[in-house]
């Protein structure tokens, strides 16, 4: 059953509110999406009816909570087509997932002079964790160039890939440009030189069907809050044999099988990586978000977003002095731009006054800003609940802002 646009919109309570006396137009979805009532209800229901600590209680509530939490893991595994649920580790988000890999795999395999290959379009979350472990291990960071239209430069990639490359860390979709990167082909090439492939899926999971086995990713990290789920929950996928061989991350309860004062033996996957009481409510909310995406249909989501992206892009082309940043042929729901002689910040302030939430600034991708010789952009990013009418409202508001500012 296909949901109508108004079915979808009415699932999001926050979309009914006003901002500065105007109906909210929320175009900051790449930073964080809003939450459907199904997700809000799932969390509410969990706390009202099922909460207890998991995995250790024999009593009914503990078993219910455990079951719901583990069901959520299964839902994530199916969502990204992992081979098994034990390959899914719940984290706080993509950032934690990437740090986990850097501090475990990185610590285990990196030696002095080894190279970690990243790209110039990475979010700081897929750069800084690598810098940290590189510094500790004497490894070197290299970065794939970005072409003028915002694609990964495949020549540069080939040139940088070598026997020294131990880890290739790349975003599936750029949060600033919207570019969908050819991660499957790049993973294949990286595997040929023996590198591990770590993919930042923070911006892909809300928009595209992700199949980690098809991509042949070694690790894949994402955040719940960008895909209609709650904050404070995300997941890291890792191939089972790798998760089995890398050391644990956080020591604590839940992640051990036997502890004496001298030493501990670690628990099986995935618990080995989930020290401490996890975010059960978050995982259960994420499960509801995945159900929402499945019922809405990811293809439908990306069709809606593509239509909005095209509509805004075409409208911007008619405004004098607009410079689009990121015009790759394959994009997912992001339009980034600048206006000659006008600061992005000023535009953001005026749009906010008109009820429109966009993001201005460097979007945590400073190396990419340096690549384009700019300080920031104005970014509109879409979700399935956005409408063409909202795009029209934004274009009118933008014209008004530019009239005031120029």
């Amino acid at each position, binding site marked *: 059953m296909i949901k109508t646009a108004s079915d979808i919109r009415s699932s999001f309570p926050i979309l009914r509110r006003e901002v*500065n006396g105007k109906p909210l137009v929320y175009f900051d979805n790449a930073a964080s999406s809003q939450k459907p009532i199904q997700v809000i209800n799932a969390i509410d229901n969990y706390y009202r009816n099922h909460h207890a600590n998991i995995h250790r209680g024999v009593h009914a509530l503990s078993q219910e909570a455990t079951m719901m939490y583990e069901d959520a893991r299964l839902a994530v595994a199916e969502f990204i087509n992992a081979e098994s649920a034990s390959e899914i580790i719940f984290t706080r988000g993509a950032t934690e997932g990437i740090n986990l890999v850097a501090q475990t795999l990185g610590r285990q395999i990196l030696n002095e002079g080894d190279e970690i290959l990243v790209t110039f379009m990475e979010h700081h979350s897929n750069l800084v964790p690598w810098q940290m472990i590189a510094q500790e291990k004497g490894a070197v960071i290299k970065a794939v160039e970005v072409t003028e239209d915002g694609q990964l430069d495949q020549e540069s990639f080939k040139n940088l890939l070598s026997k020294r490359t131990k880890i290739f860390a790349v975003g599936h979709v750029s949060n600033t440009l919207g570019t969908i990167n050819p991660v499957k082909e790049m993973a294949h090439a990286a595997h040929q030189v023996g590198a591990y492939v770590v993919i930042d899926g923070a911006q892909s999971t809300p928009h595209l069907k992700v199949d980690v086995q098809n991509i042949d990713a070694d690790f894949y990290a994402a955040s719940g809050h960008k895909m209609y789920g709650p904050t404070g929950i995300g997941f890291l996928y890792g191939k089972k044999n790798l998760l089995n061989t890398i050391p644990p991350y956080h020591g604590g309860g839940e992640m051990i099988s036997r502890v004496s004062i001298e030493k501990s033996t670690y628990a099986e996957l995935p618990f080995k990586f989930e020290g401490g009481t996890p975010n059960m409510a978050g995982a259960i909310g994420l499960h509801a978000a995945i159900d929402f995406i499945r019922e809405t249909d990811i293809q439908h989501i990306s069709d809606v977003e593509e239509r909005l992206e095209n509509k805004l892009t075409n409208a911007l082309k008619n405004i004098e002095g607009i410079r689009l940043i990121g015009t790759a042929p394959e994009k997912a729901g992001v339009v980034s731009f600048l206006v000659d002689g*006008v*600061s*992005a*910040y*000023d535009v*953001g*302030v*005026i749009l*906010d*006054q008109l009820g429109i939430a966009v993001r*201005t*600034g460097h979007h945590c991708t400073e190396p990419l800003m340096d690549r384009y010789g700019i*300080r*920031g952009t104005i970014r509109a990013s879409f979700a399935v609940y956005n409408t063409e009418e909202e795009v029209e409202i934004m274009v009118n508001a933008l014209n008004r802002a530019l009239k*005031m*500012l120029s």
Partner: protein
Amino acid sequence: MGEPMKTMEEIQKEIVEDFSFFEEWMDKYEEIIEFGKSLKGLPEELKTEENLVRGCQSNVWVVSEMNNGLLHFEADSDAIITKGIVGLLLRIFSGQRPIDIATEELYALDEIGLQAHLSPNRANGLNAMVNKIKLMALAHRAKEEAEG
């Protein structure tokens, strides 16, 4: 020793009064923007790292100069709204005695409803700007005392 033309208190009152005529936010912003555009700003050579106030989203530069016991400021920003707001700050603080600048309580921006309209990271930038002005005043004050 020079005398300020007006006290900071008087100027803050004036600003609040000027803005009380605007009912629509749009008019307030028009005013700020026009004010920002009318400020002459700083020559490129003064837009240095040293003179930069680190706000999150837009650059603000501020320089000061002592003249006859009064501390004068000039500033610039690459965002016009920021520049306008900074201009209001300078209208209050520039041309005053360092000791007064350091102790004056700023309330005018709050009162005209600008604080509320500025995003949190911008508000931090504004705070940083006010802090920098006050620190410059304190530094000059300390220098004055040392020189007796």
